[in-house]
């Protein structure tokens, strides 16, 4: 039996939100019953809802998508957040990944691809682009000296930096593509932890100061 993926959307543009919800919901295997116009309203209700994947627009008025995830993710640890963005800004993407997102998508991605990505993320494989991989490595190098990443994870990151795709990496490391993906998911988790830790320590520092 096919699983149904419950999707929620947080998007300020009405037409996009509604049309997207319509498309997703109209596709078998997907449910999209909850849409929010901004993070504030999402914040109130989302934690109480059963949602698998949240599509979050980064550029939101008021609380940005990134901040939204920071607030929501701790409350919904089992929900995957996918960032939607028009821009290809590595920094904001990375920030959102650190904040807790599991992946990102371009808003104008063809809907079929969009749906596919949702499924992928739901199934546990989050994509990571080369540039993001570089940023991840950098982040881990800067923060705490003994990297929380395992050796395999570091390897994978490095190969990602080299512009290899999953398939090539899997071949190279004699792993299945699936294993690679789950490694990457772990990396993301650690990234979240790391970032959170950083944020906490920063806050402490700030408070102390």
């Amino acid at each position, binding site marked *: 039996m096919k699983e149904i993926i419950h999707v929620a959307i947080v998007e300020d543009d009405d037409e*996009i939100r509604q049309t997207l919800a319509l498309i997703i919901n109209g596709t078998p295997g997907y449910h999209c019953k909850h849409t929010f116009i901004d993070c504030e309203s999402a914040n109130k209700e989302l934690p109480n809802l059963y949602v698998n994947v949240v599509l979050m627009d980064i550029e939101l008025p008021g609380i940005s998508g990134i901040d939204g995830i920071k607030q929501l993710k701790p409350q919904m640890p089992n929900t995957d957040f996918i960032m939607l963005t028009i821009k290809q800004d590595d920094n904001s993407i990375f920030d959102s990944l650190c904040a807790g997102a599991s992946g990102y998508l371009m808003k104008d991605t063809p809907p079929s691809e969009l749906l596919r990505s949702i499924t992928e993320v739901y199934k546990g494989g989050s994509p990571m682009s080369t540039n993001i991989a570089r940023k991840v490595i950098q982040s881990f190098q800067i923060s705490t000296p003994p990297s929380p990443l395992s050796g395999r994870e570091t390897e994978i990151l490095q190969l990602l930096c*080299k512009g*290899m795709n999953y398939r*090539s990496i899997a071949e190279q490391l004699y792993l299945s593509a699936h294993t690679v993906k789950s490694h990457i998911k772990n990396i993301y988790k650690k990234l979240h932890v790391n970032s959170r830790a950083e944020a906490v320590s920063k806050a402490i520092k700030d408070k102390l100061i």
Partner: protein
Amino acid sequence: MRKLAFLLSITFLFGKSCVFGQVLKFEPAFKQGEIVQIPIAILQDSKGFIWIGTTDGVYRYDGKESLEFRHDPSDSTSISNNYVKELFEDRKGNIWMGTSFGLNCYDPRTETFTRFLRTDTDDLTGDNFIHSIEEDHRGKIWYGTYNGLFQFTPSTDSLIQFLPSIEKGEKSLSNEVIWDIHEDQQHRIWVATQLGFTLFKNDGTLDFQAYYGDMKNENGLATDRIFNILEQADSSIWLSSYDGLFRVIESNDSIYFKRFHIHSEAPANLSDNRVFDLYSGGRNRLWLGTYAGGLNEVVISPDASENIKVIHHKEDPKNVFSLRSNNIENILIDESGMLWIATKNGMDKASLSGNKFQTIRSIPDDSTSLSSDIIKSFFKDSFGNLWIGTFKGLNFLSAENLKKGIFQFEQFYADRNNRFSLSHNNINGIYEDSQAYLWINTFYGLNYIHIPTFLKKKKFKHFNERHGIPHTINHSTVEISPGEYWVGTNGGLARMYCNPAKSDSVRFETIKSENEIVNTHTLNVIQDRFGNYWIGTFNGVAKYVTRQGKIFFENYIHELGNPNSLSDNSFRCFFRDRKNRIWIGTRSGLNMVVQESKESRDWFKTYGLKDGFPNDVIHAIEEDDQGQLWITTNKGIVVFNPELKDPVVATYNQNDGLAARSFVFRASMKDENGNLYFGTADGFNFFHPEKLPQNTYVPPVYFTKLKVLNEVIKPGPSSILQQSISYTNAITLQYWQNIISLEFAALDFNKPEKNRYQYRLSSLNNKSWINLKHNNQVTFTNLSPGEHLLEVKGSNNDGLWNEQPTQLLIKVLPPVWRTWWAYLFYLLAFISSIYLFVKNRIRRKTEKIQAIAQLEKARAEEREQLRKKNTADFHDELGHHFTKISLFLELAERQSAENKPLKEYLSKIKSNASGLSEGLRDLIWSLDPKKDSLYQTLVRLQEFGDSLFEFSDIRFKTDGLDEALESVELAPDVKKNVLMIFKEAMNNCLKYSNAKNALLKSVIKDRHCYVVFKDDGQGFNPYEIKNGYGLKNMHSRAQKVKAQLEIKSVANQGTEISLRL
């Protein structure tokens, strides 16, 4: 007697030292206060200084100053004792001094003494009392003492003493008391001792031979005590002793002696046998200094031993120019020909080169000499005879005698018993009129004679009070016109009318004038160029003028406070020079009458002491052929040229040979040959001004003293002077030693006070010599740093200059802040400061430029960012639209499930829309400066490839996407084109290749970047393919970015597209 006078006259006339010697004039060698000690030794050193050893110190005299050396117990470089008996200069220029206690060697360079003493105590043996010093040809010093002869070798300091030996007898030294030592030209040593003399060869063998006094032998040495040994240029040896002068004659290995001493029979002999000093006066002349007989001048006749002539120069209380004492200790003749005599009463000197002026005096009991020494007037008549009027008698020198230079006079006196004798002996004036009558003014009566006929009968006629002469004391006669004379008398000026040729009658008339003459005691008359007569009186001067037929006397007297008035009323003499100016000599100054016109009242320009006259009592005036006035005063003669700025050209006095210090008024004459005659109270001088004998000795000039900051500098190791200033060529001074004086001396001792000096300093602008006159010192203050050459010239008393200047280079060191390295430092400091300044400016400019550049860059970046943001914003806008298009299309597609054509159209729209979206995204990406690298380009291609081949059968891999490629910058258009090329390639691969594998890789080879995409598909033929694959596009894109595109495709072996950047 007459013969003697004759001979003496010859001497006087020619002034040369003739065969018979000359009359010497002795004068003190030193001025009052200069060396007063008794001189016992004299030496002139090789430089020209005169050294005087005295009983109390030794002195170096340079003509003006003397450097004194005395024993100083605290200074071991001072002389050992003050009693300096012997002076000797060795070949090195050191002065050896023998004293009563020790031998000393003075080094003039260091100005110090080295003492040589036998024992350090005051001994009684006499070893240290040195009488004589001599240097032999080997450089050894021999000296004689009271206790033997010593040979000293300075280089080894060895000393050998020689004493008489009883065993050796006459083969040893004759006696231990040594008076003199001499090495002759054959290198034999002669030693004069208290007991004879000793002779030995000085070749190392010391083969002594003594010769003792031997009274009995006529040809022997008649006496024991030998004082001096003299070798003449002709090698003849002379000995002076306690008993006469000996000549040594050597023949056939034996020696015998010719003795000269006082004999009562001999015509000319020594004045005293005790001859203490012996000096050579040249080839045939010796000078002997005796114990009590003064100086003997011995002339040797050239034909060897027999005859000598001796001239005595003795002390004569009546003659102030005689020797001051008959006790002569030492004699020296210096380089210039001066005779120096050290006597018991002090040092005298006399010039051997003759006096300038010859004096003629009256000789007692000689009726052919002058009648009196008091000369009052001269006259040379038209026949060439010379008439000289004196205080006591008239003298006549015939023209013939005068021409021959034979001063044999005929004297004429007043004789009461002779009616035709002179009326009085006291002659005031002599004058010849137009008729050849000679008028003689005397103290009583006016005499006259007819010259041509006079000598036969020698009869005088005269006029006295009986004839009506206003006063018998008359002074001068002047012929106004034939038959009319003016006679100046003590009772006024009288007109005399007479014609002696015709009759003896005479008429005297006093001059009737409208006003009174200033004084009636009239002395002399002269006519000026306007024809007026000037009358000099006892108290003022008057000019006789006639106006409108009336006679006036324009009287001129001295007006107090008026410098243009007559300087003094006591008239002495008149003179009219070649320019027809009237000169008036008075008791107080010389006056020149300034006559502006005939009618005007005249005024006077006066000269006297203020102009450099030695004295301004003007007695007589004459003019030489050069237009110079020779003026006699109470202190000698002044040569005066009023045209010169410095009118006194020269002065002469008794030291130059003038007869007396003071002259007699109006006693002067110039004859037609240019000879001048001047009368004094002690004879008269006559000479030719152009033929005055001059001192022809060119004096050497040396620096004698250096004073810095008013302190005398002595040579020494730490002194400014390494050696004595006389030996120094250059000195170096610090800048603060800025007062420097130098004294120098021209070493001529004739009249050293008349020596003149000039100097020149190189650093002064004026290149000409500065005249110091008689001043022998220069002082400079604040000489600038650098080198200054001081040159000094000196002349002797007659102005003969040593044209070779004596030089001293004075180097002044600059103060530290003015030295060359200080300047260098300043220069460096200046340069470095400029350099730093410039550098700073440049730096600041650069910084500014950099700042501007950075600002620009930041701005550019900002703009870029802004543009990008704008573009991004723009894109966002568009993005939203695309998103919506895409979403609605999806919906539409879903709605159109049945409508196939619609679905197809929609599908097409969808793909185009996504293509558009993609293209826009590519555009945004290409503008992003952060993505301007090869690496990013490859990453993008990789992402593209990944998604493109994801759902295909082609396994897409990448290789060589190294992060290092981040540094390979690609410009936006380059990366865009690269992107396009490979997107196209990948699309082609997907569409046509049927490949299993596709690879995107990047290689760096040969400094080029290669981007390669290859697959293992079926390939294609590049030449067959048409536009479909977009290959042309790819090529043109490659060309656009100047990259090389290579497309390799082989059938069934795949395709490789490589781009070289």
